[in-house]
């Protein structure tokens, strides 16, 4: 029997409850329970997590570098979406 590879999983950790999850890295595992335990053992050795997500890498789709122009640049000139676009008269407190 040839040596088959275990599946690749992406690991996301939440540092404190209430915070967003951040990508921590990857592990190899045959199933999601194994992926979860492996992720715990690899990515929380120094108390870096209060919660962990594991996702099969193949389930993640990513935009590609060619998409940058059409995806993200159109929002660059929409300065009216940022609060500092608006001037409030002096002496008025922020809502």
């Amino acid at each position, binding site marked *: 029997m040839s040596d088959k590879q*275990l599946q690749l999983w992406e690991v996301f950790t939440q540092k404190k409850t209430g915070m967003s999850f951040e990508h921590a890295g990857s*592990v*190899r*595992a*045959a199933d999601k*329970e*194994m992926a979860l*335990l*492996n992720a715990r*053992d*690899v990515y929380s*050795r120094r108390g870096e997590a209060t919660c962990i997500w594991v996702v099969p890498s193949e389930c993640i789709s990513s935009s590609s570098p060619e998409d940058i122009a059409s995806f993200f640049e159109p929002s660059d000139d929409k300065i009216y979406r940022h609060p500092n676009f608006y001037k409030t008269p002096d002496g008025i407190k922020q809502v």
Partner: protein
Amino acid sequence: MNKDLFEYTLRLGDTSLILSQRLGEWCGHGPMLEEDIALTNIALDLLGQAKAFLAYAGEIEGKGRNEDVLAFHRDANHFRNLLLTEQPNVDFGFTIIRQLFVSTWQHYLYSELTHATDKNMSALAVKSLKEVNYHLRFASDWTLRLGDGTEESHQRVQAAVNELWNYTGDLFEIDQVDEALLKLGIAADMKKVEASWNKHIRQVLNDATLSVPEINNFMRTGSRKGVHTEYLGFILAEMQFLPRAYPDAKW
């Protein structure tokens, strides 16, 4: 000093220490990096438990022996670790089954001890129990995977169960130390631990399509009295060599 409590604490400390020593042998040799890291995490937890229990034992004894003196300057007949913990790694399957048997035992034992009337004992049990619960989940998962994986893994892990079963009687021996401490509300009720252990192990083995060996009357026991298998002497020769060879050195 409470001699019974000293003896009892040694049993817990030595069991964690020797199992950790065995698991440490895996570091760098595991079946994949992830499992290398996982086994080492367990070894580290157990070593922490050993250190804490042995430090407490030294305190109870009151003769100035700290955890290192107890770990490195006793001979095999003074060690009180479970016979299971000194059994060799053999392969990943043996290591997992050994872990399953010991972690299950620790789980039920520590659960009882969280109610111990001795405050130090209950505090140590509370902390250790959290760690052991993870070890148990890890070992149970792998028992399932190996038992119900391939034909080869099934055979290997069944062989481990059959072999290690002979040392499970040692887990539940009751002597006057247990009896005396049970009256004081410090020790775990081994009868209860045994019943729970049996139920859980049978469930896990069953789920893993593994068969439970027959109960036999010739189980190897003796750890309570310091009568060990041949393996412990070799473990200690290696583990204790530096402090023994250089008794006046500090590290």
